């Protein structure tokens, strides 16, 4: 059965079946009609592929991401040529930045029309080359099955990422030989999973000697899978070291555990950033020294030795020079590390570690996430705190848009499991949250999925409400509504003398009526004492909800490392004396 004859369109569906794909997000169009025709024919079979019809291809790409990020599986999308592809570019770039496995199948004009500026033709592989991990234009029907198998392999192995397979319409109609995935092996791409054991031993020696150590973990732990998460927890508990996480890594280690000292970076906790600054050993697991994490690079953790575990060799020494690089998959490296730690009977340096914890506890006393409550207006931080308190007993999946609400969600919503926190970190894509929530809800039909949104971001992909209604996906959209593009306003306040250039939205829709127009439920809350009841009403409603939470307009996200500053130069709140931000700092984003 390995080699069978079928059309190109049938091969696409056969490859989906062979790679256990049962869900795709897409939008039909001229150049993918043969594939859509196969989907229609397949609808009456036992296990048809579930196709979710989005309202814009950007929605398809973020939904595929939400599906992938919440389930650990590959997200699959199907779009037509030309605008279908160009509309997908934002989502593909987003997946590229955050290392999310996506397979995008795009239609292309027939081969004889390629290069003629045909209707809905675009150079799909050219346009998506820098925003995919790899892409292919299929020019021969007999290459198609091999390419499809390679696409799934490349997307999901090593450092995951999005791939695109561009299939001209005539190839979809042609008949050729389908070869099964078991016989296809990529020519050269073989990411290294296990790290060098001598280097692991070097790392363990540093860990045993360390006096002021810290674990700094990222999205790589979550990408590596559940085994990595369990091993990380074991290793962190074994050592008793403090642990901080990047935005992408939240949930890998329980957010309410006593060893967890909060998120680090630009809006991370005081204790996490101070500990990064003053540590003598940094153990980076699956993070990439992003500029949001390091602050001013010259003053980044000046006195520490650094261990860096990463599956992507090109991440090593890219931004920060490290002492012990461990190239491999997080789960494999941690498994070997724990084994070796036990067999060599290494012991941690207990007395200095106690002192280190005392120092950290002192920093904690600053209570950098405190905020002043108000009786009359809802503070955005309070809204998210209440949302967390009222939902924490459930297994909740939270997506976000991008901006202040995203940072508050990261600070005040605590995650005890991986894949529950789904946010656009690298690219920072406004409009991500709603379609991502749809993808997460598709992957977890019985779970509570909440998109914590801002009123500006949500409007960027609001059309996906229609998708949620059509496919009966009860996503909850919790809008922190301050009428400003809050993060833009905050930067204009801090860096541009409060000249609020075009960051105020003057003509917002009535979100309650908007919800109703789509056939969803709308809720608006303006008073703190009404909040709990309304949140419960939202949770209990069986269907999509738009929750318009009207909050204090001038609240800023603190703590904050201003641009161009180091970890130990944080602003803790509006009351702290603001130093002039240097011209050098102003040009940073």
């Amino acid at each position, binding site marked *: 059965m390995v080699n069978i004859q079928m059309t190109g369109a049938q091969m696409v569906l056969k490859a989906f079946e062979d790679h256990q794909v049962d869900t795709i997000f897409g939008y039909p169009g001229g150049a993918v009609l043969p594939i859509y025709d196969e989907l229609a024919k397949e609808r009456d079979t036992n296990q048809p592929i579930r196709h979710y019809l989005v309202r814009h291809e950007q929605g398809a790409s973020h939904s595929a991401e939400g599906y992938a990020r919440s389930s650990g599986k590959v997200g699959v999308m199907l779009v037509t040529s030309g605008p279908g592809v160009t509309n997908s570019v934002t989502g593909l770039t987003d997946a590229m930045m955050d290392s999310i496995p996506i397979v995008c199948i795009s239609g292309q004009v027939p081969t004889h029309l390629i290069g003629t500026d045909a209707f809905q033709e675009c150079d799909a*592989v*050219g346009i998506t*080359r*820098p925003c995919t*991990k*790899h892409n292919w*234009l299929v020019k021969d029907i007999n290459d198609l099955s091999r390419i499809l198998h390679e696409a799934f392999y*490349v997307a999901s192995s090593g*450092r995951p990422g999005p791939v695109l397979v561009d299939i001209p319409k005539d190839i979809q109609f042609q008949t050729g030989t389908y070869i099964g995935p078991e016989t296809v092996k990529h*020519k*050269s*791409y073989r990411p290294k999973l296990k790290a060098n054991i001598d280097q692991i031993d070097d790392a363990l020696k540093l860990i045993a000697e360390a006096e002021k150590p810290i674990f700094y973990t990222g999205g790589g732990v979550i990408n590596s899978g559940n085994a990595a998460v369990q091993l990380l927890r074991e290793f962190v508990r074994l050592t008793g070291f403090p642990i901080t996480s990047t935005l992408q890594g939240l949930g890998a280690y329980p957010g309410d555990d006593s060893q967890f000292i909060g998120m680090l970076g630009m809006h991370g906790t005081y204790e996490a950033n101070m500990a990064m600054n003053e540590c003598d050993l940094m153990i980076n697991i699956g993070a990439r020294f992003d500029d949001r994490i390091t602050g001013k690079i010259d003053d980044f953790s000046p006195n520490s030795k650094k261990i860096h575990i990463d599956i*992507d*060799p*090109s*991440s090593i*020494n*890219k931004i920060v020079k490290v002492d012990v690089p461990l190239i491999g998959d997080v789960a494999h490296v941690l498994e070997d590390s724990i084994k070796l730690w036990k067999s060599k009977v290494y012991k941690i340096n207990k007395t200095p570690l106690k002192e280190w914890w005392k120092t950290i506890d002192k920093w904690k006393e600053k209570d950098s996430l405190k905020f002043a409550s108000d009786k009359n207006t809802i503070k955005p931080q309070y809204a998210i705190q209440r949302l967390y308190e009222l939902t924490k007993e459930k297994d909740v999946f939270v997506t976000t848009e991008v901006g202040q609400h995203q940072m508050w969600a990261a600070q005040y919503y605590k995650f005890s499991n991986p894949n529950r926190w789904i946010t656009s970190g690298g690219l920072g894509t406004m409009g991500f949250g709603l379609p991502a929530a749809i993808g997460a809800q598709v992957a977890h039909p019985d779970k509570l999925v909440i998109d914590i949104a801002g009123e500006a971001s949500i409007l960027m992909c609001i059309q996906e409400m229609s998708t949620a209604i059509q496919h009966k996906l009860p996503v909850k959209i919790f809008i922190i509504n301050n009428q400003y593009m809050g993060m833009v306003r905050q930067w204009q306040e801090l860096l541009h003398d409060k000249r609020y250039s075009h960051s105020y939205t003057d003509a917002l829709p009535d979100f309650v009526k908007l919800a109703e127009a789509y056939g969803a439920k709308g809720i608006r809350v303006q008073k703190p004492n009404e909040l709990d009841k309304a949140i419960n009403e939202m949770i209990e409603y069986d269907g999509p909800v738009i929750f318009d939470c009207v909050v204090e307009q001038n609240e800023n996200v603190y703590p904050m490392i201003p641009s161009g500053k180091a970890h130990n130069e944080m602003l803790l709140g509006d009351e702290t004396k603001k130093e002039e931000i240097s011209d050098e700092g102003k040009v940073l984003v």
Partner: protein
Amino acid sequence: MSEIVSKHTVSVLVDNEPGVLARVIGLISGRGYNIDSLTVAEVDAEKHISRITIVAPGTEQTVNKMISQLQRIVPVKRAANVTFEKQGIEREMALVKIVSTGEKRVESMRLSDVFRARVIDTTHDSFVFELNGSPRKIDAFIDLMKPLGLSEVSRTGVVAIARGTEKM
């Protein structure tokens, strides 16, 4: 790390498949790096491996970053800095056309001998010289030819390889 801008030679081994050169060049130009020269040819016909040699100006840091980014491209097997000053050997070929008569013509012929250039085409008024060597040697030859009727130059760009037993 050194902040000095100098020329770096980077060798990249790639699977010879459609679009691979566009991937490499697109990454370099897209990230704002410059290229002085670029050569590419298949070096293993059985395994379909090509070798790309790029000469790019930059600090050691920017070139290292560029190499890191290149290594993320799926069909890139290896990328390394093989700059001459470190351990590499660099060679380039040039075709140089001289249009002149009389004393200048004789002088260009005499100098080409010093540089071990070969005459591969001639008329009464012109020569085409073929010259191999390091890029510096070729630069020097071209400089000397300028007052002697230099008309046109075509250069291959640099190819490079490590000395001794070292393999990329």
